[in-house]
């Protein structure tokens, strides 16, 4: 089932009554989620991603715009008529019901021609439980299970009706780190197996990158960028997206384009830039640094962290917009720690330029790294 | 109004009907009654409006007797029962074995019919030509004079009254105080013990201040409860409380409304408003007390 959002908008009256202006939680969203894909809504807390999800679900009514499931306009339909399943951050399992009863609950609400016989219900419950591998816990109550198990039950409950759309609201944030990775693989497996169009809300970029077919990056109600995780990472549309994706985060420098050359401080770092002279932010991914004695970017060495597979160099530079530079170098390269400074050249495909005012990306296709000498 | 609003009001409707008919309307009505002079129940007519009803009630010797009885009851039973409940709760908290057994036993009076047990008290204290009664036998054993506590002198009747009231109100107080004491963070006690503080000192310096919001809450609800005393008195002295000289404010209201003095709703309303003024003052005090910080986690 394809999902189409058309100018979707949600405004709330301001909590502070003195301010008349409404708070815009979701601002004119336009995008399409292709059938059978898993799409993440990614953004910091308060960016409107949960509101968007609630509107897709039908728990909240939009103040403007339309939502289509396939060709049907579902904007005004209540959740139960949309054929959606939802998994909540706190799982929202009914504490007084056993696992079996919890999963069966949505089926018992079906009315009229869709009503199921007891046997059918039991069969569907078993099926859903097997899918998430909890079929041996059916008679437990939620408080007798671990967080991961509760999460599986919540997913089974959302899936038992065979919804056309599955919605997941921060489903992993209550789990510990190891379980989180395990469960997200599990969600991916289940989604692939069932082929249900899935919308996944998270604030964790790593989670979103690892699980999604596509990502929707949001900030304060405004859509920033849509695309495949790798595409967004490799080609962020603006400084916010560049900063939000990637761990360790991107290193941002104050820079200037002069005669098609990027200067950081007084050092030319890259040239062949087809853009007008201007002040810019230059973002360099940690893996975009190459140790090079003749590199133009000379930084004060602060510390070295050996991580096994690679080495992380922490250094500083006067034009750095943050506090410190973190660069990741393959561990095979020996780093001279005796010196006070390290010098880098920059991989052009890991270097992004952003307009200093608008923070929008400045296209620089043929950019090349500069070496001294 | 949209559909959602209708739904909310629909769920509220039964409560609103009961509230309107049996609380809001009567409140307005009681005000009207209290100012209607010379109201006649039979003809539903009255001769004028004014403060005469209040003046009548305040000069009625029965009312003054009831007021006096109620005040004595309040002043004796509230401090005594609270103090005893504190002591018993502290003792309860100091033992582990049999604690639940004692707690259960102490709570028993709460679930008994006060009219029924009052009758037992009456028998225990009564002196008849055939028997001195149990309490008098004990007094006699210790060399005291026997006295009829039920139909004898005023102080004796008052004593029984207070004893029975205390017996009735203790369970609630013990329960609240024990659970308050149990919810004091044990780290305080540990800290005090590490400093070598004696148990008595711990009780006065830590336990009491910690549970003081609960104590003041109990004192104030105790006041309100004692001001509304009535059925305990009936249980011991019978329905004709005026004759026994043991009437209370609430008893006076009911007697005025329906009973031996028969059918004066205006006087009853005036007396009820006076009672309400007293209770209301205490309730407002209660609210002010509850605004204070509460040390207990349950709050």
């Amino acid at each position, binding site marked *: 089932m394809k999902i189409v959002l058309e100018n979707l908008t949600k405004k709330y009256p301001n909590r502070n009554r003195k301010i008349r202006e409404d708070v815009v939680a979701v601002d004119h969203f336009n995008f399409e989620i292709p059938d059978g894909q898993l799409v993440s809504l990614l953004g910091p807390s308060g960016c409107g991603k949960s509101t968007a999800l609630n509107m897709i679900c039908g728990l909240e009514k939009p103040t403007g715009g339309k939502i289509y499931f396939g060709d049907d306009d579902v904007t005004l339909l209540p959740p139960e008529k949309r054929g959606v399943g939802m998994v909540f951050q706190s799982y929202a399992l009914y504490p007084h019901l056993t696992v079996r009863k919890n999963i069966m609950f949505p089926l018992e609400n079906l009315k009229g021609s869709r009503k199921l016989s007891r046997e059918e219900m039991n069969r569907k419950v078993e099926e859903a439980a097997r899918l998430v591998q909890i079929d041996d816990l059916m008679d437990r109550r939620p408080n007798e299970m671990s967080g991961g198990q509760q999460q599986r039950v919540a997913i089974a409950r959302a899936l038992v009706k065979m919804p056309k759309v599955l919605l997941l609201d921060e489903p992993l944030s209550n789990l510990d780190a190891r379980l989180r990775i395990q469960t997200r693989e599990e969600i991916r497996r289940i989604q692939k197996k069932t082929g249900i169009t899935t919308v996944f809300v998270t604030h964790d970029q790593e989670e979103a990158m690892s699980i999604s077919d596509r990502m929707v990056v949001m900030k304060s109600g405004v859509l920033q960028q849509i695309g495949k995780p790798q595409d967004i990472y490799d080609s962020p549309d603006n400084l916010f997206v560049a900063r939000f994706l990637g761990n360790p985060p991107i290193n941002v420098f104050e820079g200037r384009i002069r005669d098609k050359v990027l200067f950081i401080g007084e050092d030319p770092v890259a040239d062949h830039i087809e853009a007008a002279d201007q002040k810019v932010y230059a973002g360099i991914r940690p893996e975009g640094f190459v140790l090079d004695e003749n590199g133009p970017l000379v930084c004060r060495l602060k510390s070295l962290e050996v991580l096994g597979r690679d080495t992380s160099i922490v250094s500083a530079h006067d034009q750095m917009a943050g506090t410190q530079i973190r660069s990741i170098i393959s561990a095979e390269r020996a780093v001279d720690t005796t010196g006070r400074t390290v010098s880098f050249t920059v991989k052009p495909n890991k270097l992004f330029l952003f307009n200093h005012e608008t923070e929008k990306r400045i296209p620089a296709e043929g950019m090349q790294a500069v070496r001294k000498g | 109004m949209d559909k959602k609003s209708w739904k909310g009001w629909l769920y509220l409707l039964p*409560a609103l009907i009961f*509230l309107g008919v049996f609380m809001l309307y009567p409140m307005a009505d009681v005000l009207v009654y209290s100012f209607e002079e010379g109201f006649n129940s039979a003809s539903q007519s009255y001769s004028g409006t004014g403060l005469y009803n209040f003046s009548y009630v305040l000069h009625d010797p029965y009312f003054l007797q009831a007021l006096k009885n109620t005040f004595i009851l309040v002043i004796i039973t509230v401090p005594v029962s609270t103090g005893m409940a504190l002591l018993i709760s502290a003792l309860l908290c100091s*033992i582990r074995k049999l604690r639940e057994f004692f707690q*259960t036993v102490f709570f028993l009076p709460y*679930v008994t019919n006060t009219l029924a047990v009052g009758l*037992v008290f009456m028998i225990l204290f009564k002196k008849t030509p055939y028997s001195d009664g149990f309490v008098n036998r004990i007094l006699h054993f210790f060399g005291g004079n026997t006295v009829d506590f039920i139909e004898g002198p005023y102080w004796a009747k008052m004593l029984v009254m207070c004893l029975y009231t205390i*017996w009735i109100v203790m369970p609630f107080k013990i329960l609240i105080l024990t*659970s308050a004491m149990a919810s004091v963070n044990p780290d305080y006690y540990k800290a005090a013990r590490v400093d070598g503080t004696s148990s008595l000192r711990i009780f006065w310096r830590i336990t009491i201040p910690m549970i003081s919001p609960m104590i003041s809450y109990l004192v104030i609800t105790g006041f309100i409860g004692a001001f509304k005393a009535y059925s305990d008195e009936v249980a011991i002295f019978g329905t004709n409380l005026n004759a026994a000289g043991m009437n209370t404010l609430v008893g006076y209201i009911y007697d005025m409304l*329906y009973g031996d003095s028969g059918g004066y709703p205006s006087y009853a309303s005036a007396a009820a408003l006076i009672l309400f003024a007293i209770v209301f003052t205490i309730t407002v005090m209660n609210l002010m007390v509850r605004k204070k910080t509460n040390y207990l986690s349950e709050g």
Partner: protein
Amino acid sequence: MSKIKNERPTHQKSSAVSQGAGYDAAGRKAAGRGRLKKVIAGIGLSIWALIVLFPFYWMILTSVKSYGSYNSEYIPKLFTSSPTFENYISAFTQVPLARYFLNTVIFTVVTTALMLTVVVLAAFAFARLNFYGRDLMFTLFLALMMIPNELVIITNFVTITNWKMRNTYAGLILPSVLSVFYIYLLKENFEQVPDELYKAAKVDGTSDMKYLLKVLLPICRPTVITITILKVIECWNSYVWPRLITDDQNYFLVSNGIQEIRENGFGRENIPAMMAAVVVISVPLIILFLIFHRKIMAGVSRGGIKG
């Protein structure tokens, strides 16, 4: 500050003793003191337990003494060698005790059931439904919690009389149904149930009523049980309103019945029979209490602390 300083020397002294050669002796002494304290506490508590239990013992004892033997005891005996059940027979035959009993059961069950319906619906509306004027209404409800029953009972008496409902079950029950405090208690509890459960139920296509019955009430069962028990106790012991509104013995509740028995029943002096009636009336609640004592006490303390 000075008090803390005063405390120090004693502390050091006692620790010095316990560290010294007499460690075992001191320990034993401390343990002995602890045991002594426990014994004193036990004695104190036992005395109060005796005071609490004695009236119950006395009523059971008296109820099994025969009329003749009771009246011949100038000095009441603390036990009886020849218990008899004839008083219980006369309690049920000479006065309409069974009738009082039945009336009270009907009154208690119907009032409690109606109260639960009204209270649950109202609490749900306040806790979960959004409607125009909700906050204002709730404030009004809270304000009404301060109104003592004595204030409104006068008009209610007139109302019920005008409706020709004196000496009817309806007249007994209707004004006793509403308890604003329980609405408040239940609303608070409903609000503690996470929002997400409501949303989940909505996604599953659950109606508000079904959510209330199938999810909210089972989750809040402890509170529902609490208010049920409190109401049952209140109904079983209710005296004032029934006394006002009934003068036909066929509609007396147990409390009024016991008063009637005392004043006009067996003849004023048949105290054993009276006590038999008292026992019969007290037993149902005591049995209920002995079965559910943990729940009842937890409920009363919760209701009391929040109230």
